[in-house]
């Protein structure tokens, strides 16, 4: 990836249409996200925040406009899987752990795209599991873990290949308030300790206020971009 100072993402007039333009999920979005920022994308259901996260994760291509990651155009990447494997870590609302693999094995799954030998993969997965406080659950399958524990394993998995950006889609959406607090604290800790860029999609204002910056979306547009509390977003 080309380096462009501290700018991680830069979107200009980003649009995404579905069904031959009948559905406009993004209607011209402009923003920049700097290295080490904690940005919460907020908005009601269907406002386009998940579509935007898909674009940032190179899971889909925009219809028009440009989106750059550290100076490289994301839609034009020859192999987006390399970007997804090395540059970013994904955290999903539904955890998406593979049910037939233990916690330790789930963390190793993204590492199969790296050149690490099996023993190193295992060692690194164990370290990551320790970092989320679940080393005692290494051999447990997802079905034996609580929702909060599953999400902590998923966070450890997102860090498997040492990404510089974490993209989280409603990471506390399926959790009770206590587990939601634990997960949020963990994400904030990761962001602060490892200087990671954290882009988080949520409709929970308590979580959004923890971010340094909010991008509020409405009908496929960004209607607020600033420090939480400086305006009165109502997602």
């Amino acid at each position, binding site marked *: 990836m080309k380096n462009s100072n501290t700018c991680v993402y830069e979107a200009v007039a980003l649009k995404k249409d579905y069904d031959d333009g009948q559905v406009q999920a993004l209607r011209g979005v402009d923003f920049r996200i700097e290295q080490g920022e904690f940005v919460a994308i907020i908005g009601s259901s269907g406002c386009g925040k998940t579509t935007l996260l898909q674009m940032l994760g190179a899971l889909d291509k925009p219809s028009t406009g440009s989106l750059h990651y550290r100076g490289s155009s994301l839609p034009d990447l020859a192999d987006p899987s390399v970007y*997804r494997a090395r540059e970013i870590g994904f955290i999903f609302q539904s955890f*998406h752990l593979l049910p037939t*693999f233990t916690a330790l094995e789930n963390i190793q799954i993204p590492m199969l795209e790296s050149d690490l030998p099996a023993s190193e993969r295992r060692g690194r997965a164990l370290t990551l599991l320790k970092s989320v406080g679940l080393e005692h659950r290494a051999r447990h399958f997802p079905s034996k873990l609580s929702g909060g524990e599953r999400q902590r394993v998923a966070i450890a998995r997102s860090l498997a290949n040492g990404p510089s950006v974490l993209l989280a889609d409603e990471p506390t959406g399926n959790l009770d308030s206590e587990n939601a607090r634990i997960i949020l604290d963990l994400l904030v800790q990761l962001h602060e300790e490892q200087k990671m860029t954290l882009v988080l999609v949520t409709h929970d204002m308590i979580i959004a206020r923890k971010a340094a910056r909010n991008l509020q979306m409405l009908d496929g547009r960004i209607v607020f971009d600033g420090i939480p509390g400086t305006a009165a977003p109502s997602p």
Partner: protein
Amino acid sequence: MTFFSIVVRGLTRRPVRTGLTLVGISIGIAAVVALVGISRGFEKSWETGLKARGTDIVVSKMGSSLAPKPFSDAVAELIVKLPHVAAISSQFVELLSIESSQMMMLSGRQWDGYAWKNLKLISGRMPLDDKEQAVVLGQTAAEVLKKKIGDPLQIEAAELTVVGIVDGGAVVENGSAILALPLLQEIMSEQGRINVIDVRVTPGTSEDELKQLCVEIVRAAPDVTAMAAGEHLSNSQSFRMVKAMSWGTSLLAVLVGVLGVMNTMLMTVFERKQEISVLLALGWKPSRIVRMVLWESALLGFLGGIAGVLIGVAGIKLLQNTEAIRGLLEPDLGIGLLLTSIVIAVVVGVMSGLYPAWRSSRITPALALQG
């Protein structure tokens, strides 16, 4: 954890479905092993029988039935005069139901023909002459018919006495009831008729001379065919039909296995659509997903192949000991056939996985964020 453990876990996720698919493919492979093994074994034991008798050329009139058609025994007199012919042995062979055996090879042999010479007496004696109402049994035939020396043996309307039990050096010979040619001609009401002439050539006859002799035999007796012993069975119309049928039936069974594997792999891909999209979102290349699906289907094929070979071999052993056909089967279950069967199963697995793999390559990673 390795990529291969992901492949294995993919199959163990739905053990019942994987098990049923394995049963499907293994039955197909078992059919290949059993049917092809039997037809190849039949060919091999026939050749061994000819070799045991020291036959170089087989003269017969093969029709569409398994036993050759009868022709005049005067043909033998024409052949014996030809160059390079050292000896001949006329025969009348027939597959008949004899007492408790539903199908047994009956071989009426020219009394002074060399085909008697390879029979080694295990007990009893040989018939005294071609008039004696006597029969010798190959050792398997004696076991199947539960006969010992002195026992009567009913063949069609005639009652003969078992005078000897012999080792013929080949499964076909040991599974036969052997008697003098005139006796069998009388029983079958085929006096003056034979259906096989075994020809032994003089030592030092070259392959070209042997081929030329075959041509001359046919020229002398246009009604019959003459072939080198090794080629006789493989050129038989009926045997070729049996062989084609065994392959055809096997391939049909394999096709059922193909559909089973394809169905399983398609179901797997559809069920794991979101999981695949998550793997893509985590950085897996689409090619790795395709490889995962292909490896899973290849592994299914491999395991089905192993199970199929075991089932096929066990089935054949069971069949061999069945009273009805005991002594008639000598399946050729060489390592070549078993390995070929496993290779077929793996190829079937990979082929069956191609479409599901292509479908998996169409899954978009964006699905990971939906639900």
